[in-house]
């Protein structure tokens, strides 16, 4: 059924390319504002155990028996729906284009949205969760701003707080919504217990928070000799939190959630970022849906989706360092189990040679054994698994824009105190970036960012930009077509930025033929790498008034 639908869609697309077809407005790509709606009731909380059991065992079993799974092996998965005609993700309540859409300085990437740090001075402790493996608190600074406080696991100072800062800043730069995360040295004597502060007891029940409990917590989270303890303060997410998002299903309380998460390139491609950053926490509970009231009518608003909890990134796993194998296979990896069982134990996991980094704050984080296509989160993530080659290219095109300077600046924000740890993490991230781009760019010609200056069409070669062109730079061929005919052609040396001037051909053609665009207002320029001529990039331009405007880009796949 679905395959038939896809075929019909493809047929209709073949009849008239989407970039040629109205609608287009004056800027050709327009996203209307979100639909405003009343505050929905709180969502059902899906607890961790059930999600782990459901995602880890029940859903794989169900998927294995579903025709959809077989169909998707035969027919390429449907492309995502949150796209413009350049294959870029448009703004939504899940994602806003940043690094790929505008120039960002290294400092802007490194600082991200962390521009309102907590005010210095005393912190009022409102409550918290002091028992369990991942203790935390809620505090209020002197200005009344509230923060969630997270500590590093005992014995692993800086590990999870560094991961939180690095990954949240990188994700923010790329375009996802994340909380403002700050590293903060809490002076133990600056903590004041608020009257009526509560915490969770052994049975998850609410109990009064006492100063004894607080002292016990601090004593267990790597306090320094000078009476301070390093913590990560996460500013409260704006709006009214209604629950978690989902990587699998739509929530019908959100009229802006027209697409399933698995049909969003922003959610599919997020998997490549988590892959790069080794964030194995792809649970629904690592997202938050918050209702933002409209400034004009507080009774109405819309739901935005935030990604949270990045302590499972890099070499950490929240309250501990990662175990060998985490990030390389699912927590309950049925394929691995079956391989071990049926091979009579002769099958060995490829990741076995992985060794702990030589820094206590880093844990298991490396780039040598790492194979991007084999990376796995701890439990299956349906959106990540829905990633197509184009989704992967898109996410790769964002990752490629993180320059070495940006990565170094991001890691510097983590303020590692161990000598060499920051350099190790930055180098590992760069090495993983190189591998992941090699995978993401392999089946495409990674030309992107079409722009026109006068009659000159320019593009960026993202592989060259990121320095990951296999075999070095080459000569590209290009051909410009109009009205089903060849307008002009040429060759150009590849570099980070390539440009072709269509002016002479257009001028000559106009001289010969008079008005050009009466019959066909669109010009298509096709670029190919002669060494792999099957991989082309077509840039569609429209004559708009007396200007050339890029209106679409499509690329061939291997």
């Amino acid at each position, binding site marked *: *059924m*679905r395959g038939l639908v896809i075929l019909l869609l493809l047929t209709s697309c073949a009849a008239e390319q989407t970039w040629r077809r*109205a*609608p*287009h*407005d004056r*800027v*050709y*790509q327009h*996203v209307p*504002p*979100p639909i405003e709606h009343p505050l929905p009731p709180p969502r059902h909380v*899906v*607890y961790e*155990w*059930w999600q782990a059991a459901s995602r880890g065992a*029940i859903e794989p*079993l169900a998927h294995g028996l*579903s*025709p959809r799974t077989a*169909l998707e092996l035969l027919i390429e998965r449907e492309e995502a*729906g949150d796209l*413009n005609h*350049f294959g870029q993700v*448009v*703004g*939504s309540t899940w994602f806003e*284009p940043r690094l790929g*859409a*505008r120039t960002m300085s290294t400092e802007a990437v490194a600082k991200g949205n962390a521009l309102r740090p907590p005010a210095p001075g005393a912190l009022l402790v409102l409550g918290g969760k002091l028992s369990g493996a991942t203790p935390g608190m809620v505090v209020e600074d002197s200005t009344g701003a509230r923060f969630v406080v997270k500590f590093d696991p005992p014995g692993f100072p800086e590990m999870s707080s560094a991961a939180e800062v690095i990954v949240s800043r990188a994700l923010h730069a790329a375009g996802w919504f994340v909380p403002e995360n700050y590293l903060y040295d809490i002076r133990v004597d600056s903590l004041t217990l608020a009257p009526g502060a509560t915490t969770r007891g052994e*049975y998850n029940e609410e109990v009064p928070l006492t100063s004894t409990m607080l002292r016990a917590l601090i004593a267990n989270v790597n306090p320094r000799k000078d009476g301070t303890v390093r913590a990560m303060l996460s500013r409260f997410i704006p709006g009214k939190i209604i629950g978690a998002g989902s990587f699998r299903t739509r929530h019908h309380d959100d*009229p802006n959630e*027209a697409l*399933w998460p698995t049909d969003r390139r922003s959610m599919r491609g997020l998997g490549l970022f988590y892959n790069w950053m080794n964030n194995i926490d792809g649970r629904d509970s690592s997202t938050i849906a918050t209702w*933002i009231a409209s400034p004009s009518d507080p009774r109405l608003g*819309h739901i935005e989706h935030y990604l949270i909890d990045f302590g499972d990134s890099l070499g950490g796993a929240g309250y501990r360092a990662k175990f060998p194998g*985490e990030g390389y296979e699912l*927590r*309950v990896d049925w394929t*691995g*189990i079956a391989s*071990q*069982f049926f091979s*009579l*134990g*002769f099958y060995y996991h490829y990741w076995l040679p992985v060794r702990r980094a030589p820094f206590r704050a880093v844990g298991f984080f490396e780039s040598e054994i790492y194979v991007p296509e084999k990376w796995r989160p701890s439990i299956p993530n349906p959106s990540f698994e829905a990633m197509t080659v184009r989704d992967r290219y898109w996410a790769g095109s964002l990752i490629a824009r993180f320059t070495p300077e940006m990565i170094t600046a991001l890691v510097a924000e983590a303020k590692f105190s161990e000598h060499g740890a920051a350099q190790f993490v930055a180098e590992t991230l760069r090495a993983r970036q190189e591998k992941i781009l090699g995978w993401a760019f392999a089946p495409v010609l990674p030309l992107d*960012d*079409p722009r*026109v200056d*006068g*009659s000159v069409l320019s593009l960026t070669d993202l592989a060259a930009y990121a320095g990951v062109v296999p075999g070095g730079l080459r000569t590209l061929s290009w051909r410009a077509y109009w009205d089903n005919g060849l307008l002009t052609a040429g060759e150009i040396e590849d570099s980070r930025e390539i440009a072709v001037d269509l002016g002479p051909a*257009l*001028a000559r053609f106009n*001289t010969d033929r008079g008005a*050009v665009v*009466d019959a066909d207002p669109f010009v298509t320029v096709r670029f190919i790498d002669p060494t792999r001529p099957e991989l082309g990039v077509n840039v569609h331009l429209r004559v708009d*008034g*007396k200007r*050339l405007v890029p*209106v679409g880009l499509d690329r061939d796949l291997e």
Partner: protein
Amino acid sequence: MTLLAALLLVSTQTSSTATVTPPLEGLVLDESPLTTSIRPEPGSEVEIGRTLLDIPGAFIELAFMPLQPLVELSERYQVHQRLFDLITNDELTFAASPVIEVFSSSGIGFGGAALYNDPLLSSDRVSAIVIGRVNGDISSTGVIAHRLPSMSGRTIKLEGGYYLNHDFRYYGVDPDNTGVRTLIEDEGVDVVLTLQVLNPGDSDFRLYLSGAYRHRELVPGTPTATSLDLPITPGDGFTAPGGFNQSLDYPEAGLRLEFDSRDSGGRTTTGAVASVEGVFTRDLQGAGTGGLQGTTQLSFFAPVLPLHRVVFMQFGAKFAAPIQGTLPLHNLVRLGGQHTLRGYDTERFLGRFGWWSTFEYRYKVFEETDTGIGFSAALFFDAGQVGEDFGRMMMSPVRWSAGLGLRLEHSLFLLGRLQLGFSPEGIQVSVGLGELL
């Protein structure tokens, strides 16, 4: 606000790709009106096509849905922790647990277990387990073990047990063994006091002295819903075991020497376990049953590949010699069941002499990283012989079985195993909990 910023950024993006540039000479203005909205239209509440493509997998998910509220309530209110604390007194380290026995030829069994102190890792412990089965069978055991500081930590252990088995499947002692079985009701009481002799800190050797009292009553069995065999009757071709239709009391004295050099009590990769045991018993009722039995067993673990790919080999032999009259049933060599010749029925072969061996290849399949608990698979081949005397034993056919098993292990102890054994007589499934090897 953030979304408004997002929309502005989208505009910025599209503007950046659609740079406003000076007009090109010679191009004709095209001012056709253009409008757009690229927000996807909301889908229907229930997407029929998507749902249909997920059948029958969707039904599997639906079938598990009733578990969701239970699991979530347990996590939210920490029900598991409350239950655990309810049956566990942390200061006294006391725990109780219900027990359900599924894999029993006498039908399903229900009971309970109580433990004081860590039953798996400590020599100081008190434990008891009672199980009643649907056919009226009862099985109960209790253990009190204590390390004696005044004797350098040597252990003294008192074990007691009572059992009643209405349908013990009796195939006869060696010459009667035709594969036909009959039923015996077996009732017994055991009390065993064991004292560790050698200093446990000195070496891998352990020496135990034991004294025991055993009471036995063997009478014709009772057919049950799960056992359609007939009870043993005179003249049916079977030789009744010693002490049949009598109520007998046996004192017993034993000496056992053990050697254990395993690297781990659970997921063992290397080491050996060896034992030699001699037991003397004689009934007090003048029935003329009693004897001397000697048992030796050697188990050897060898890593054949890295990371818990291990070969386990075991060889054991036993003889039982009557002091006067006949040997009691419990003194005989018994092969078949969970530990030997696993493809055969429990205690399928009985004799005065016997040997058994196992070759087993074990390999780790999965380990849960947080707890260290995991599964190993095992492929095994068992062999053994029994006989009325040594010569007959050697002349009798070598019995064999093969199979596979799944072992639930922690690195420190074996939690249990599920085995599927094949033999010329069919297939046997067995389950063992908390075993040593």
